[in-house]
């Protein structure tokens, strides 16, 4: 069968057009989140947020259409590396996600070697900063900013002694160590520094130790699964001082697990939908599409996806060097979680932490 010359030419032209132009083409974005295991609900929430953002961008038109490829990291470093490798070989142009810091750290090199821009929307251990090969951008304020906010509050309340409790994982230990250093540098005493095991239900020995140390406040730096029972046991054990939790414990689940003990508990939170003036549209759309309310990192991940699309648009394509340059220079003002721009070390240029307090079973902004 002879191939007519003009159809060969047409075919060649078509190939050239499809091959070279990323403008107007389908852009695949990798999503690295835990969709299995204990943190699956948060990971799924982030994947949903990406999908929602993509649907809106695609509907608005303007050239590029996006689709997502989800890689499950199961909150485990080795599974994360496998997932990252799979994503890299799936023809993606960029990656978004990262929930568990411990699992995200080893993937940085993989995405770095593949020269893929990586927008990290939840993981925020400060250990991510030195491990960043230069392609990752963190839009959730790191432990440094969280501790700075915490110190503001603790100084204002005149706390002299603090007890810090973490779970021995990369994120909570990082936050706990930073808090310890800042608090002692500022002249306070850390009366007690404890590590508990994830899933171990009995905190009585630690609670008794804390009571004996009688600090002005207790700071829980880990997740809500154990945070809830811990707070409950603290109060039942008779501790009456202030209780603070970090941003890993700010989901609504804390109230279910801690019950009445969560009343009056303070938290440092990345902005969740209830506190964002512009987030109502997002919440409603999310609820309509997925039949469930968005969780803690939905807004940030949604913003991250929109930021990425914006950067790709500004870079005129998916060339990673150009996209990364566009991200570095970003001054994104349409984020529902606030403005996004980056410091030289690729962390968010402003602290996005707010202080909230538990009242009547939900969080409200604290004064």
């Amino acid at each position, binding site marked *: 069968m002879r191939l007519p010359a003009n159809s060969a030419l047409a075919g060649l032209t078509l190939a050239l057009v499809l091959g070279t132009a990323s403008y107007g083409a389908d852009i695949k974005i990798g999503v690295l989140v835990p969709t*299995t295991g204990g943190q699956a609900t948060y990971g799924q929430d982030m994947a949903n947020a990406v999908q929602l953002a993509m649907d809106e961008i695609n509907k608005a038109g303007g050239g590029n259409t996006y689709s997502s490829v989800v890689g499950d990291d199961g909150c485990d470093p*080795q599974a994360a590396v*496998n997932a990252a490798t799979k994503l890299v*070989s799936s023809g993606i142009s960029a990656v978004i996600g990262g929930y568990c810091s411990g699992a995200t*750290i080893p993937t940085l*090199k993989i995405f770095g070697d593949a020269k893929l821009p990586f927008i990290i929307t939840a993981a925020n251990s400060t250990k991510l900063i*030195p491990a960043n090969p230069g392609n990752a951008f963190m839009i959730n304020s790191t432990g440094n900013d969280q501790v700075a906010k915490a110190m503001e509050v603790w100084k204002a309340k005149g706390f002299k002694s603090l007890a810090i409790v973490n779970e*021995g994982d*990369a994120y909570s230990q990082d936050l706990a*160590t930073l808090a310890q250093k800042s608090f002692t540098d500022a002249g306070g005493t850390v009366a007690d520094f404890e590590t508990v095991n994830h899933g171990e239900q009995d905190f009585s020995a630690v609670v008794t130790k804390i009571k004996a140390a009688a600090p002005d406040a207790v700071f829980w730096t880990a997740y809500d699964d154990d945070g809830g029972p811990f707070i409950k046991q603290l109060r039942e054990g008779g501790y009456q001082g202030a209780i603070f939790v970090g941003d890993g414990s700010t989901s609504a689940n804390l109230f279910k697990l801690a019950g009445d003990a969560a009343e009056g508990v303070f938290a440092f939170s990345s902005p969740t939908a209830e506190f964002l003036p512009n987030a109502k549209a997002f919440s409603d759309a999310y609820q309509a599409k997925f039949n469930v309310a968005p969780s803690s990192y939905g807004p940030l991940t949604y913003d991250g996806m929109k930021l990425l699309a914006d950067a790709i648009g500004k870079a005129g394509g998916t060339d990673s060097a150009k996209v990364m340059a566009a991200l570095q220079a970003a001054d994104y003002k349409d984020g529902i979680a606030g403005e996004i721009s980056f410091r030289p070390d690729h962390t968010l240029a402003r602290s996005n932490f707010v202080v909230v307090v538990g009242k009547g079973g939900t969080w409200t902004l604290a004064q």
Partner: protein
Amino acid sequence: MALQPGSPKSLEVRPSAWGGLATILDTPQKRGVAIVLLLAFMAVAPIAFGPYATVILTNALLYAILALGLNIVVGYAGLLDLGYAAFFAVGAYSIGILTTTYGWNFWAAIPVAVLAAVLAGIIIGGPTLRLRSDYLAIVTLGFGEIVRITARNLEITGRASGIIGIEQPWLFGWHIATSRDFYYVFLILTVIGILVSVRLSRSRLGRAWLYVRHDEDAAEAMGINRVRVKLAAYIIGAIYGAIGGAFFAVNFTAISPQSFSFQQSTLFLMAVVLGGMGKIPGVILGAFVVVLGPELLRDLGSFRYLVFAVGLLLIMLFRPSGIWPTGSRR
């Protein structure tokens, strides 16, 4: 007792390493061809199957090395070790600390890693290897946890975040850095591991392990120092673990306590028992099943671990001696 041609297999003192396949591959020529084909297949696999498959196969080869080491402890010497990840950790952290904090060259650090694992093996094995196997199980489990928690708590091991930025080594001008580089490194290590295991199984030490495993008291009566023989197995297993850990560290460039948990130890044990305890090809098959299983089932999402667990259960119920054909009659 020499093996006469034609003797019933149930009388074999040293069963063939090929197990049940020995019936098909009954001449050295056939076995040679099988080995060459397999090696050729493994050599071209990265090019044929792409980067993702390369990484997963590298993982499988790592598990194969560790399974071979654990096979010596569990399969040859009959010691129930529930904390094998401890040696893996010692190897990985030795490399991590020496190369990152002290700037050592990787190759110079390897002997130190091996020595550290040997010391660990002696320290924990010495007082406990005379215990009954069930007690030994909990002691090895405890030791695994002690190593993990220590790594989590100490500054020098990077605490819970671990060690990052481990430099990848150079060998005579070849920078071992890409996933393909590591694939071939692990393939070579696996082949070396197999050769060492085979030689061990045929050596006097290997026979001593066999006797001790079958009847400790009779072996003792024959003049075999039971504890010394078990300790030898434990230490050799530790060396395998340390080498696996060392190369694991430079492959991933970031290590943290999460990779050295009890779950990891049980995965190694699963690989050994699933494939066919004591049989080298079985153990390697087990390693591949344990690594490839969850990856192949990735599309099932949340269900994949459940499917894997049920599959594992079914395999154990229907083939308790492992997947690899044994060829022996009960």
